């Protein structure tokens, strides 16, 4: 009884400290994402050199004034490749996160609100998807069919959607029993309107924060696929692929292998931080009553 409050109190202290630290971290995370987006939009202007210009004389050289992060085995400028690599790092994961949730919203809201057979059918499909080793399946299919990056992204969308469906369904179940939904039902508002005008807005905060988390996970997954040689074709600058191609240069030019790794981790971590922070913000907004 009164023992509980003590441990609770300690929890409070920890949470308070975290909250105070959080905004600062969020600033950093937002700055990182800002720079990544800059790289996506203005790669041509920002990059000192073309990412594909080969300089076979200056192969695998450490950083110099000409090449700030050195060059890779084919003498391509690492910094320029990093900047151009941001495109693959943002577009793919973004498509995966948004695509996964588009499926997730449609299926999750239907399952959660309609219930019954619809719910059973959708959730059994989700269970089935959960039992497949999604990453492995993607690896095999893309490897055999050879569809490259677009196919990998498409398969990841399907691979991500069951988890997203579960999230949306859980949230829809929570909302469905609230008096405001019951009031709309008693008024005689059509089901479609309740789902797509009211429920969807109320589950959106959760979805938005999860999109960030999904983005981070998709970035890591796509990079892993690229590292394994699946997805982006050779030549196209991509952080995961750079990591793979340049790992042999670890002594000649360590930056060539380390910086893409850092880029992946920092971008993914930033997106994760923002997602978690949004989650907290939204959770509080709905709790506050007055």
């Amino acid at each position: 009884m009164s023992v509980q409050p003590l441990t609770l109190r300690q929890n409070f202290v920890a949470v308070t400290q975290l909250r105070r630290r959080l905004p600062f971290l969020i600033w950093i995370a937002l700055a990182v994402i800002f720079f990544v987006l800059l790289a996506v939009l203005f790669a041509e202007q920002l990059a000192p050199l073309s990412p594909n210009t080969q300089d076979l004389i200056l192969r695998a050289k450490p950083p110099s004034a000409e090449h700030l992060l050195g060059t890779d085995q084919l003498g391509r400028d690492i910094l320029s490749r990093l900047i151009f690599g941001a495109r693959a790092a943002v577009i793919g994961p973004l498509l995966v996160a948004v695509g996964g949730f588009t499926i997730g919203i449609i299926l999750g809201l239907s399952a959660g609100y309609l219930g019954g057979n619809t719910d059973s059918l959708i959730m059994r499909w989700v269970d089935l998807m959960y039992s497949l080793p999604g990453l492995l399946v993607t690896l095999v299919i893309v490897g055999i069919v050879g569809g490259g990056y677009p196919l990998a992204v498409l398969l990841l969308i399907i691979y991500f959607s069951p988890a997203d469906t579960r999230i949306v369904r859980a949230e829809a179940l929570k909302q469905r029993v609230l008096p405001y939904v019951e009031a709309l039902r008693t008024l005689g508002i059509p089901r479609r309107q309740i789902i797509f005008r009211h429920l969807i807005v109320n589950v959106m905060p959760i979805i938005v924060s999860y999109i960030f988390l999904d983005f981070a996970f998709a970035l890591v997954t796509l990079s892993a696929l690229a590292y394994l040689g699946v997805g982006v074709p050779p030549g196209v600058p991509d952080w995961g692929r750079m990591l793979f191609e340049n790992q042999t240069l670890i002594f000649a030019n360590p930056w060539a292998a380390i910086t893409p790794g850092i880029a992946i981790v920092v971008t993914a971590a930033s997106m994760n931080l923002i997602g978690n922070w949004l989650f907290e913000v939204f959770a509080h907004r709905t709790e506050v009553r007055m």
Partner: protein
Amino acid sequence: MTDGRATLLDVENLHIVAQGNGTPRTIVNRLDLCVRRGETVGIVGESGSGKSLSARAIIKLLPPGVSATGKVYFGDIDLLQATERQVQGLRGRHISMVFQDPFTTLNPLKRCGEHITEMLLPVNGVPSSARRAEMLRRLAEVGISEPEAAERYPFQLSGGMRQRVALAASLAKDPELLIADEPSSALDVTTEAEVLKLIRSIQKARGMGMIFITHNLTTAFAVCDRIYVLYAGSLVETGPSKSLLEEPLHPYSLGLLLSDPPVDRRLAKLPTIEGSVPRADQVRDQCPFAPRCRWRAPECVAGAPPLVNLEGERWSACIRVREIRAEMARLAAQARRDEKSIEQPVNSQCILEVTHLSKTFHLRSHDVHAVKDVSFQIGENESVGLVGESGSGKTTIGRCLVGLEQADGGTIRISGIDASDYNRLSTEERQRLRRTIQIVFQDPYSSLDPWQTIGSCLSEALALVDMPPSERKQQVESLLKRVGLPPEYANRRPLALSGGERQRVAIARALAVRPRVLVCDEPVSALDVSVQAQVLELFRQLHAELGLSYLFITHDLAVVRQMADRVYVMYKGEFVEQGPVAAVLDHPQHPYTQRLIASLEEYRNW
């Protein structure tokens, strides 16, 4: 202080601030409070008055982001300056706390006995059999005499029993001060009276100091020796409960007292306090009650009024108290002997008829017979009350009527349509039915879509009655006006509205489809006392103007007395008594109704 008893707790100039994201927000402003040994002190206030946080500040259990300054002396230790370790040593042993919700304060995985045994003071060399005996003695003290109860898990006990166990656990270390934060508010009327009586008798028997926090003046008067009335974070009045009840010396205390409707008679007009409780910040440097006070003068908003001693232990923060005292006394006296308004017997055509309705919920372990073979009628322009405690099945009936729940047996006829099964109706019939019967829910905080503006919420409902978009805007305004809200509210979202205002919007939304029957499911029980009366008065007004029929579902007999013409008393899924309100409440026949009424009368006789 004049009393000979030693001071146990002395709070001086307590200031509580919430450090949200951005600007700090005042929650409690300069609170002084003292508790003597063996005395029960009540802190009375509505939501937002800061009563709960004040109590939590005393034992340093404030939530994150909320901080307190000032002095809180317990003996000669200043608790606010003390280290966490020091306070930890005091909690339980010297100061203990009982919380509102007995459903969440007990660890669900521990048997009731263990909750108490773990709290008993550690004494070396005592055999476990003696500890068990002590634990049973403690349970007996809170009125649980059968030893088997100690072996049960919390979920196997009723709310009242759980609160008793929680109380026994808080008392296990024999504290000198007990802080009870709304200990009975989550309980049913009859259980509430028992628990309050128990707390009071234990406090007296032990000679323990107690701080009793409540939003209900009546219970405060029954339990406490002295009362502090808090409003929007400021102390407005304090005094011995008896004399405060007889003559409140602050317009707010008077208003609060008057707006609590009486159970023994029906008032022609319910006294209300206009407006709603402001935030503590908005009224920091003025009399907090001034915006709603009928005696407001320029000097009231010129600065924060100090607490002034009037006589004996009576203190009031009203600077005009001497001028308006006679007038306040006259108003109070007038309210006490306010004439009864006689309920008119309604002999109108029946609009809603329920016969042999039953509903059973099939849970995993057992079946719950929520409604058993119930029949009743509601006439045109008639207001029917449905009274019962939680779990009596009253809400289930309301939900069956509007099609949110499907009855197992019996028939429901509303305005000539068979509404027993909404799914079997044709679209057109269902539509007609929904324009005949509507519902207003208990919790105004969740009955509106938080992201939708009030205007869009109302026009969405108006669209259902085929109103062309061009007329909707004007109709929204007239709906808002009808429920007493300014037209600008159409652009606001629910978050910017107080509880009472939200409930008004919910009523307006129900009215949008021009129903003839309104099911009101505990529509005021989530609202503050001072706002309750306003909303009840609105219901009465709509009844008179629109000729609506009501099914008023409530646990509160006073509300039924004010609102209903006829009443049905429900107990465990069945009607045990029915008839005109005056007849049932004045001369109850069934033992259950008698017990309900007795538990209310009891407060006055302690």
